[in-house]
């Protein structure tokens, strides 16, 4: 068992130009004897407001020594915001284009009258700079805003794998906020290879004092979300749909209550899901929290009920205790255990100088294992250089 520790450290942000952060994380899983270690290094440099760079690299030891780059970008910005260019490794996502990590470049141009033009191109990221064979992705978006109240955009993306079309989509997105208490957002993507809607989402929310009510709807066609080079993309259109609502009520200065319910159709099989959550801040600042959540899922073969409770308690002198407990009861255990309990206790300490240490112990009974335990340690250090 065992593992080493590692790092952390977040403290109040300061507007210094160069920030560095190192996290070392380790966990032990006695049942598999597979210790895991992870070191994450982050740097953020903001020499002037118009240029910044960011990097996040990590190395790990599970199951073998390995390392990779998660983010490595340089962004140059026209001082007044009329345009910007960024290049390197980053996640591209705009309009109806789903997030894709790429090694490439992106340019954005804006006009004073609300028009925006974006274009990007590059190579989809392969872990650890693995081999690529004629893979590339390119796309863009054109949008127009009207008086900061509405934005309408149209996007296009094409992705190729080994020279073959893997994704060829057009999309549209809309955001409207006609009055201060109401806003609406929607997006949809249309697959050109297998003609049809691959993904569509809409959300409308209204706020009245302590209340917020949101209505949401979605349609997703899994076969069209797969690369068109996958054999499983040819099975046709059996979309899943969801229609629901979420409500939030700030019932008291320290108490928030939330509830959500949705009806679902999964491949023409009807079902639904819902949850309710209460969150009580234990002091005016919200440093301590007590939370309780109950959740029910009932659709197709996914039927279960779950309860989760969290407690986060400041102990003074930079120490904090936290614990989290969850119990999930499946309707049809099928030999996977009648209930899947999970629990974690953690103690963390944060210094004023940028050091942070956290340790935890996790125990669970899962569908795979009668019981499972894990020890976790994280040590972090944040530096800010002038």
């Amino acid at each position: 068992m065992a593992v080493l520790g590692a790092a952390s450290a977040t403290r109040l942000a300061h507007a210094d130009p160069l920030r560095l952060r190192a996290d070392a994380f380790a966990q032990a899983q006695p049942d598999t004897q597979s210790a895991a270690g992870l070191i994450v290094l982050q740097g953020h440099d903001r020499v002037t407001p118009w240029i910044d760079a960011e990097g996040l690299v990590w190395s790990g030891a599970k199951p073998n020594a390995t390392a990779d780059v998660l983010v490595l970008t340089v962004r140059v910005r026209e001082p007044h915001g009329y345009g910007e260019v960024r290049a390197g490794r980053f996640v591209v996502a705009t309009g109806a284009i789903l997030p894709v990590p790429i090694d490439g470049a992106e340019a954005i141009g804006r006009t004073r009258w609300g028009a925006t033009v974006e274009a990007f191109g590059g190579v989809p990221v392969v872990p650890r700079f693995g081999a690529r064979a004629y893979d590339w992705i390119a796309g863009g978006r054109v949008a127009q805003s009207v008086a900061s109240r509405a934005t309408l955009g149209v996007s296009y993306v094409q992705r190729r794998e080994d020279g073959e079309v893997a994704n060829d989509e057009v999309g549209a997105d809309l955001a409207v906020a006609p009055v201060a208490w109401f806003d609406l957002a929607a997006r949809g993507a249309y697959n050109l290879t297998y003609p049809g809607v691959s993904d569509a989402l809409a959300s409308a929310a209204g706020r009245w004092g302590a209340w917020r009510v949101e209505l949401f709807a979605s349609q997703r066609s899994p076969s069209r979300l797969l690369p068109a080079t996958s054999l499983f993309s040819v099975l046709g259109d059996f979309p899943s749909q969801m229609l629901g609502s979420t409500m939030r009520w700030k019932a008291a200065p320290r108490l928030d209550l939330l509830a959500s319910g949705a009806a679902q159709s999964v491949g023409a099989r009807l079902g639904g899901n819902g949850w309710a959550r209460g969150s009580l801040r234990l002091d005016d600042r919200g440093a301590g929290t007590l939370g309780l959540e109950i959740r029910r899922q009932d659709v197709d073969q996914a039927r279960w009920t779950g309860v989760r409770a969290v407690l986060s308690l400041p102990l003074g002198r930079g120490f904090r205790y936290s614990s989290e407990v969850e119990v999930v009861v499946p309707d049809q255990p099928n030999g996977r255990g009648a209930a899947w309990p999970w629990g974690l206790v953690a103690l963390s300490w944060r210094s004023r100088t940028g050091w942070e240490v956290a340790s935890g112990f996790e125990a669970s009974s899962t569908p795979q294992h009668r019981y499972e335990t894990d020890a976790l340690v994280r040590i972090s250090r944040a530096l800010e250089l002038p």
Partner: protein
Amino acid sequence: MTARFSLILLLALASAACATVLGLRRTSGAHPFEHRAHSLKGINCVECHRGVGVADNTSPLHIPSDADCRRCHAKPHDERACGGCHGESYVREGVELAREHLRFEHRKHMAATRGDCVRCHIEVTQRDAQSILPKMASCFGCHEHQDQWGLRDCDRCHVALADEGTMPDDHLVHDSDFVREHGVRAASARDLCASCHSERSCAACHGGDTVPALPASLAFDEPRLAGLHRAGFRSRHAEEARADPGLCVTCHSETSCLDCHAAQGVAAGPAARSPHPPGWITSGPGGGEHGVQARIDPVSCAGCHGGAGEQLCVGCHRVGGPGGNPHPNGFSSRKDKFHDVPCRSCHGVGP
């Protein structure tokens, strides 16, 4: 009578306890500073906040000292520091944070408002206002920032916004179930999100196969953080995936399940155990449950059987094979079925 009295007493105590716990009644020593009381006494702000009228962007904060208080309160009721009870420490920390991350000069604003502080600090007039920092909407009352908003030109006022780590409380509120909501909310304003969120915020979840560990794992001591993968997600991940087919592939590649499943011995391979129930594949029309489930959630199939594993399917579903036609009625594709991937796997004319 005694029972009724006891019941009333019990209810009163319970109400008092609830009021305290819910924050309806204050019990701690520190409380919001009595700005309103001072204002009603006709005390000018600059009498306590000395120097604020000429303060520029680099001037020290103008939070009054004990000496400032004692100029009027010559006989204080307590020898302890005034700020220990009058005003809350976290409010002052917020002011310090604002100083670091805002380009703002009181000097210019005092001249423009002719010394009327309340015009911006409207909370001064409210009883028990915790913070009197003006909300951003107050700025818009005088300043036309539509151009800056559209051009994402926040740097004129905000310094290193992405590093400030403060959620806005009066615009772009991240409320309720924002993890689910953020995808549709960000669609039209990705670059607006980027004005606060650095690249690693997105990459922490959407970094594909290069993410070393999800935020829920790294921040195991922060149970208050929202996230799809919190708590016992590993136990229920199969149920979560079944409940919303295609959701996983909006972040993960279709084969990202494979590494973990292979380690657990639940993946395609000679030594692996099959996760499928008896009767998964049957001969005859439909072929059993596997045909139904593959149509509902082809992403799950691709998780193990993608890539080279597709040959398992082709063995039966090739043209003329026993598996029959896997395409539904009305299926259409712009691909060349004899030459393009994946069509040629079954329809190819051979080498």
